[in-house]
């Protein structure tokens, strides 16, 4: 398990830890009650491992962090948003495989 590599993002730390991050950041918007989110979790864990040191990978719980969820207009989960230099540069909504996530990340490295 790579779960210790997974950051926890919140409304409070989002600006500091995501928008001001020196490396690109992949944020998985999720919730406890979302079955496809649970199915996506292993792919997110694998990505955190594969991109260690190059891309920060973390999760944001949409139940607990409504401000960030609304700010990026997330209205469907799982939603994986990629941030680079303080901007959202790409996103994928819905359950996808690891390869699809990797292709999105690689486009922006």
């Amino acid at each position, binding site marked *: 398990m790579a779960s210790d590599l997974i950051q926890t993002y919140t409304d409070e730390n989002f600006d500091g830890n995501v928008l001001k991050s020196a490396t690109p950041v992949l944020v998985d918007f999720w*919730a406890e*009650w*979302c*079955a*496809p*989110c649970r*199915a996506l979790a*292993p792919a997110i864990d694998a990505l955190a491992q594969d991109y260690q040191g190059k891309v920060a990978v973390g999760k944001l719980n*949409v*139940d607990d962090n409504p401000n960030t*969820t609304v700010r990026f*207009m*997330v*209205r*469907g*989960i799982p*939603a994986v948003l990629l941030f680079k230099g303080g901007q959202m540069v790409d*996103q994928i*909504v*819905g*359950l*996808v*495989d690891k*390869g699809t996530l990797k292709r999105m990340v690689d486009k922006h490295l």
Partner: protein
Amino acid sequence: MTRNVVIIGSGPAGLTAALYAARANLKPLVFEGLEAGGQLMLTTAVENYPGFQDGIMGPDLMAAMRVQAEKFGAELQRIDVTRVDLGRRPFVVATENGDEEARAIVIATGASAKLLGLPSERTLMGHGVSTCATCDGFFFRGKPIAVVGGGDSALEEATFLTRFATHVTVIHRRDALRASKIMQDKAFANPKISFEWDTVVTDIKDPAQGVVSSVHVRNVKTGVEKDLAVDGVFVAIGHTPNTALFKGQLDMDAGGYLTTHDGSKTNLPGVFACGDVQDHVYRQAVTAAGSGCMAAIDAERYLESQGH
């Protein structure tokens, strides 16, 4: 190692096939797929699966089926199949982890939600357009939304969404619903649900803003067009079978469903199909499970006839 049976898919059909094949000592390998558990993973209470008099949550039912199949020796892998080669024996089933050889294959890949096909629908997917009420209903607390469709899943979604939404408008292209009587009664009795009959969605706004602000609809009988102000659109207009892997290798009908004969047999000996991938008529958890049982028994008899 050549496997006796590889099962592709893990909804009620795939897991029942796995249970029966495992109990027949065939040591089945199940590729569960990314969307393991199938469509029931996206539902709430299932009230028509026999044996559960108080209903059971879809994900709980699938978790129980999975445990039961594993208990008898089925091997399950949560991975998508990327390619199948049915033109050689043993058959080949490929995933990103490599190839598996199989003497028999049970196809239980199910069906996925159909979309309207509007460009704005693509752009706004996840930003107000959804095919999963249980996943995304939460985002529409205190907001008006629309559900497109007139079958059981449309009315189930509409009823579920009234927990969050101020109002749910069901947009249906005909003047009568396909849904079962009990679902219709529930929806008609719900004060938060209203209907737009004989109506189709022609556009979803506003892609430029990146969120849904309204749907543009047209009455197919009167030709009258109008905008309905909604924050969300849930599309429940039916399903399309997951048969892309088998194009050109197995017989399908015009809708892309696998065609079966004499139980679960496809046109290729040793390849069996069960569940929604071959059924656009009943599409129930219990019929899928029943056909999964048939496929496992058919596979077992086939292997026996081949001397395995």
